[in-house]
C-alpha cells in the first residue's frame, strides 16, 4: 500500500472502498454520500490521492448527477481524455498547445501511474491506459513510464491480452538502456515471461541463441551485452505488425569499431565523419563479419580501458590492428 511522506497510507477513502469491497460498493457508497453530504462526496473524489480506476468507475454517477464542473482540474482533464479516447474524438492538436500541455501531460501521467495496477479491468479501461502510455512516450517523450509499460506488457501477456501496441510504444521510446527492463523478465519464475523476454530480445546473441541456458546466466549475459553495446544500438523500428519476430535494434559494429555513434536514425543515415574515420570504415567494411566482430569488441574495450592507447592502435594498419585484437582479446576483461 503506498505511503505518504509521514509514513501513513496514501490510499484515498474512495480507493479503499473500491479495493476492499469492489466497484459496485464504491458506486453505492458514493451515491449515498451525495445524498447525505454532497460537499464531502465532491471533496472525496477530488482527493489528491485518488487513483484513476475510482474516477473511471464513478464516471457514470458524475455525469448523471451533473458533478463534472465541481471536479478538480486534473479529474476534469482525465475524464475528457478518457471520453476522447473512447469516442475517437481525441485530437493531438487539442492538447499540444502550450496552455494545455502541462495539465494534459499531468493527467495522462496520473491515469497511467495510478491506473496500471488495474489494467485488465475491461476493454474500455485498457484502451484508455494503452493510449495514455503511447502518448506519454510518443508525444511527451516521457521515458520515466517505460517500467510501467514493461510491467503492463508482461501482465497482459500472462492473461493473453493485447500487447502489440504497448510493445511498439515501448520500443518507440528509442532508449536502448530500457532493454534492461525486459531483460529483468529473463529471471522470472513464470515461463511465459521468459518466453516473451527472449522473443523481444532475440537480436541479442545471448538471448536468442541460448534458449536452454540457465535463466540467471542468460540474464547476466544479456545485461552485460546491453551495458557494453547500448551506445551502438540503432533503432530498426520493426514491429509485430511488420513481422513475426521483430528486431527493435541492431548493433552497429562500425560504430563500435570507431567508438562513435555513426548512424542517426532507423534508416541508417550516416553522420558526417572525418576523412580519417571514413578511410577506417571503408577498410573495416571489407572485412569478414567474424573479423569485424573481433575488431569492434577489442576496439571498444581498449577505448574504455585506455583511450590514449586506443588512439595509437586505431592508427595502425588494419592487419596489425587485427593481429593485436586477436592476440589480446582473451586478456581483456
Amino acid at each position, binding site marked *: 500500500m503506498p505511503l505518504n511522506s509521514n509514513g501513513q497510507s496514501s490510499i484515498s477513502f474512495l480507493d479503499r472502498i473500491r479495493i476492499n469491497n469492489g466497484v459496485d460498493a464504491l458506486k453505492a457508497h458514493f451515491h449515498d454520500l451525495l445524498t447525505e453530504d454532497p460537499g464531502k462526496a465532491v471533496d472525496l473524489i477530488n482527493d489528491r490521492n485518488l487513483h484513476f480506476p475510482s474516477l473511471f468507475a464513478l464516471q457514470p454517477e458524475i455525469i448523471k448527477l451533473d458533478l463534472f464542473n465541481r471536479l478538480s482540474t486534473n479529474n476534469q482533464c482525465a475524464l475528457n481524455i478518457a471520453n476522447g479516447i473512447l469516442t475517437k474524438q481525441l485530437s493531438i492538436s487539442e492538447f499540444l498547445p502550450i496552455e494545455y500541455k502541462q495539465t494534459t501531460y499531468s493527467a495522462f501521467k496520473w491515469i497511467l501511474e495510478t491506473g496500471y495496477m488495474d489494467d485488465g479491468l475491461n476493454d474500455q479501461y485498457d484502451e484508455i491506459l494503452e493510449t495514455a502510455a503511447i502518448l506519454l512516450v510518443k508525444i511527451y517523450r516521457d521515458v520515466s513510464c517505460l517500467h510501467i509499460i514493461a510491467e503492463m506488457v508482461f501482465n497482459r501477456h500472462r492473461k*493473453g*491480452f*493485447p500487447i502489440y501496441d504497448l510493445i511498439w*510504444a515501448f520500443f518507440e521510446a528509442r532508449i536502448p538502456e530500457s532493454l534492461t527492463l525486459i531483460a529483468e523478465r529473463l529471471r522470472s519464475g513464470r515461463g511465459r515471461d521468459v518466453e516473451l523476454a527472449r522473443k523481444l530480445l532475440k537480436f541479442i546473441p545471448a538471448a536468442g541463441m541460448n534458449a536452454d541456458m540457465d535463466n540467471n546466466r542468460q540474464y547476466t549475459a544479456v545485461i552485460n551485452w546491453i551495458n557494453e553495446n547500448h551506445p551502438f544500438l540503432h533503432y530498426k*523500428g520493426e514491429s509485430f505488425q511488420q513481422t*513475426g519476430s521483430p528486431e527493435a535494434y541492431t548493433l552497429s559494429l562500425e560504430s563500435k569499431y570507431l567508438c562513435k555513434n555513426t548512424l542517426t536514425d532507423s534508416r541508417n543515415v550516416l553522420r558526417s565523419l572525418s576523412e580519417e574515420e571514413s578511410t577506417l570504415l571503408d577498410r573495416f567494411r571489407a572485412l569478414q563479419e567474424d573479423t569485424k566482430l573481433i575488431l569492434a569488441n577489442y576496439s571498444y574495450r581498449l577505448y574504455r580501458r585506455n583511450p590514449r592507447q586506443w588512439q595509437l592502435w586505431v592508427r595502425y594498419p588494419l592487419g596489425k590492428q587485427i593481429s593485436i585484437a586477436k592476440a589480446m582479446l582473451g586478456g581483456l576483461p
Partner: protein
Amino acid sequence: MIRISGSVIDPNAIMNQIPQGDIEKNTFDILSSSSKVYSFKSLNELNFELSMRKSIVNAAIDLNNSSFSFRVFRKSRCNPDFWDRTNDGGFLLKKGVNPSDAIKDIYVHSSKYGTECATAMVIVYYKAVLDVFPEELFNRLFPEIYLMNWSHLDRDLGIREYGPGEDDLPGDGMYFKNPDVNPLTPEWQGENVIYLGNGKYYGHGIGISDEKEIIRALNDNRISGSTVSAYRLDSVKRLDFKYLAQKYNSFTPPRDMGSYNAEWPVVYIPHPNN
C-alpha cells in the same frame, strides 16, 4: 534467369509449358529476365510456384472484393461457428472444425469478420494454399490455425523474409512503413500488402492501389506537422514454395478422391478477375 535441374533454360523453349494466365506469364517473365538465378528441380516445381503465386493474387483480390472489414485487434470479430476469438483479438480454429471450412468461411461470410492488415495477409496465404491443395492435404498440413498478425504462423507455410534487392514478384508480401504515424492510431504505423503485379498492391483497409496511393494514405495518418514520409521496405515475404510443392507432389490421396492428379497443374480454373 531460370535454372531447371542445374541448367539455365531458354524462356522461349518452355513458354508453352507454363500455365498461360496473365499472372503466371508476368511472373515467368520477371523470373527469366532477372539477373538473379531462380533454381528449380523441375518444370513441375516452377509451375507450382507460378500457380501458387497466381492463387495468392486471386485470394487477395477476392478478400478485397468481400465484406471483410478492417478492425483493430481490440475490436476484431470472427464467425464463432468456426473460430474462437482470443483475448488478444486473434482467431483460433474452433475444435472439431475443418481448417479448410474455417478458412473458406472467412470468404463466404466475410461480413462476420474484421481484423488488422497483418492478419489479413496471413488469411490470404492460407486461402491461396487451400485453393491449390486438395482439402485433405490442407487439413492434414494445417490442423491448428491461429490467425493473429505474423505471430503464430504455421511452420508449414514457411513464410520467410527475403531482401533487400529481391525482384518484386506477384504474390510477394511487402510492407510500407509509416515512421511518423499519429500515435492515436497506431494501426496506421504501416501497411502490409500483397503485390498483385503491374505496380498494384492489395492492403487490407486501403484496398487495391499503387505505391503512391498507399504512401499517401499512410501519410494522411501521420502526426500533424510531420515531414517524414511513409515508404516501402526493401524486403519481401514469401511462402516456401519448394516445400509446399514437395508436400503437394508427395501427397497420396485417399481412395475416394477420384480425380486427384499429382502432376501440376491439377485442375486449372481461370479466375473471374483475370
